[in-house]
């Protein structure tokens, strides 16, 4: 690459693949392979947010886990500041965990019910030896709690005593305790109430600006993704089908799947809802264990041609910084 003079991306994902093997259906069947993520590549620049959207089962969550090496990818590379995380052993990976963090979807499941929130937030500080003494850690925890909007008074409380939004704040405080560069946000607001969603989104944006954070924002709510992302990648059955700047995607979606997805967004403006012509997709998403030939979207695509049924389209740049994987664009 001759563009190395430019600021290089903080995170580069290249050809990421994650396959799962299902148990054999019988002795004579080869085990089924679920191609959850099947060759995904993208870059994320420092301080920016990439939104990763798609419907359930498209592989977006697996992509996030594979980047973090919580699930070891089947193939591909994840370069974080130039180091390929996939090549590191679990032990060598540990220091890198300081730089890459995750915020989970379910604030009820992602906190140990038997650990007070003060201890939970202090844990990463102790693991990475950021704080040497208990007092130091306690002070830092209180500061973090204040920063994410929790009253430090409740430092000794247990997670079950907090509401969903507050728990999500605890999760954010834990992830940010180690002062990471890059954070995977896996549907961080989808289990929260609308008014709380807005509070958390505002908090995430403030923190990003303040700490120069880089986000991979995984979500299915296209309203939220448009709001928070600089660039957006649309996934369908383990592949990115469209990748572009946020407004480009929303103003002029090119891939038929993106078009259908966007036409289904329930905007709160009743005038928009009336004038909007929804593209209703036929059928349901195919199974990732039994993928269609050619373009994976062709069985549901209103514009599919013979070619689409045979030949899989590659992701190519059809306009400036606007990549699409479709034969018809």
């Amino acid at each position, binding site marked *: 690459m001759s563009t190395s003079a430019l600021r290089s991306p903080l995170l580069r994902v290249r050809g990421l693949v994650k396959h799962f093997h299902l148990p054999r259906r019988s002795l004579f069947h080869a085990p089924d392979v679920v191609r959850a993520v099947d060759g995904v590549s993208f870059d994320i620049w420092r301080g920016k947010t990439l939104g990763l959207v798609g*419907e359930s089962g498209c592989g977006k969550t697996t992509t996030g886990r594979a980047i973090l090496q919580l699930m070891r990818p089947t193939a591909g590379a994840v370069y974080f500041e130039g180091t390929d995380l996939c090549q590191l052993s679990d032990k060598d990976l540990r220091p890198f965990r300081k730089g890459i963090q995750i915020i989970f979807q379910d604030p009820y499941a992602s906190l140990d019910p038997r650990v007070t929130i003060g201890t939970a937030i202090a844990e990463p500080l102790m693991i990475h030896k950021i704080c040497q003494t208990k007092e130091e850690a306690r002070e830092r925890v209180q500061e973090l709690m204040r920063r994410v909007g929790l009253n430090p008074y409740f430092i000794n409380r247990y997670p079950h005593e907090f509401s969903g939004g507050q728990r999500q704040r605890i999760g954010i405080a834990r992830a940010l305790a180690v002062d990471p560069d890059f954070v995977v946000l896996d549907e961080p607001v989808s289990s929260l109430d609308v*008014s709380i969603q*807005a509070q958390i989104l505002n908090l995430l944006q403030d923190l990003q600006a303040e700490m120069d954070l880089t986000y991979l924002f995984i979500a299915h709510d296209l309203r*939220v993704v448009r709001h928070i992302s600089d660039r957006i990648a649309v996934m369908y059955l383990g592949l990115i089908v469209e990748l572009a700047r946020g407004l480009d995607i929303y103003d002029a979606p090119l891939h038929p799947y993106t078009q259908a997805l966007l036409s*289904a967004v329930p905007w*709160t403006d009743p005038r928009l809802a009336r004038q909007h012509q929804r593209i209703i997709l036929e059928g349901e998403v195919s199974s990732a264990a039994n993928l269609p030939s050619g373009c994976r979207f062709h069985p549901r695509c209103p514009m599919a041609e013979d070619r689409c049924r045979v030949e899989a389209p590659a992701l190519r740049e059809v306009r400036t910084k606007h990549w699409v994987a479709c034969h018809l664009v």
Partner: protein
Amino acid sequence: MNTVSLPHMQYAIHEKSEASGHIGGMMQIDAEHSEIPLAPVGEAQERPLLQIKELQTQFETKQGIVKAVDGLSLELYEGEVVGLVGESGCGKTMTALSIMRLLPENGQIVAGEIGFDGVNLLQRSGEEMQRIRGRKIAMIFQEPMTALTPTMPIGRQISEAMEIHLGLSRQVAKERALELLAHVGIPSPQARFGDYIHQFSGGMRQRVMIAIAFSCQPRLLLADEPTTALDVTVQAQILDLIKNLAQEAGMTALFITHDMGIVAGSCDRVAVMYAGRLVEVGSVDDVLLKPLHPYTQGLLGSVPSLHSEPGERLSSISGLPPDLVQLPPGCKFWPRCPLADERCKQEEPLLEQYGASQAACWKADYRSDSISESK
């Protein structure tokens, strides 16, 4: 304790017999009034199909009495689709369960009246309610997996409802069920008639649920977050399906949701609920475009819109929903309200007409003025 046999909802309900008199002295008063129509005579068109008056539903919990619904009044007119919007715990689901008289064991309707087609549902016996449920009022739940019987083929669940409620023969009911399955968009219904609910995908499950709900052509449909568990594109399909079916059948529907976007696309009128009571009621255009109540404004501001600039801050509502065991005096929203003053902290505002819609806010006057000025 009783288990409703139809439609096949695994729902333990607490039937209150007329004689047990839990609803207290109210019942006598109602009995006297039952001769009097609930709406003015001579305006048959204007008579609401469903008229909820001062409904109060409470729950006994370890922490104390939870006033899930507290003095809610709402009318649904024939053929309209009304959205009931609010956040979790605001009492919107409990309102629907009160209408169905399907409250959990520790819940109880302590006051109010639910007029349906001229009769007060709270006076009906358990048996009468069973005939009304499914036949005249149907409900669609958020999670079809928990609302349908896992051990009975779905075709049988639909046809049995019709056999019992409509008195159809087994053969006719089966034919009707097959038609219904095709109508709600289940491919090859003949083949899927004998399938069980777990063999369907999320969207298809909801379609089965809709087929059951529409099977006896009820007059009122209560849809409790019917699409929350679904993906965006499937959500759009299901919403369109419900809307079209309801329109075809001239059905009245109450859409319970937390998402203003669903209201915008599917409803005629909207009622916004907070802490067990309504804070704003009006047509979708009025409420969503010119919200009067600060809570409605906050809810709308919390959802990013297509017009907003990416990255700008959302105008969220501060604080948390109140504890329903210990509600603040005065307006229930004042601890989170940016406009609250001394009066709001002491006197509770009631729903009043401001322009085209109703709001329960002392500041609505000022709001409606400022909106008309800015126009």
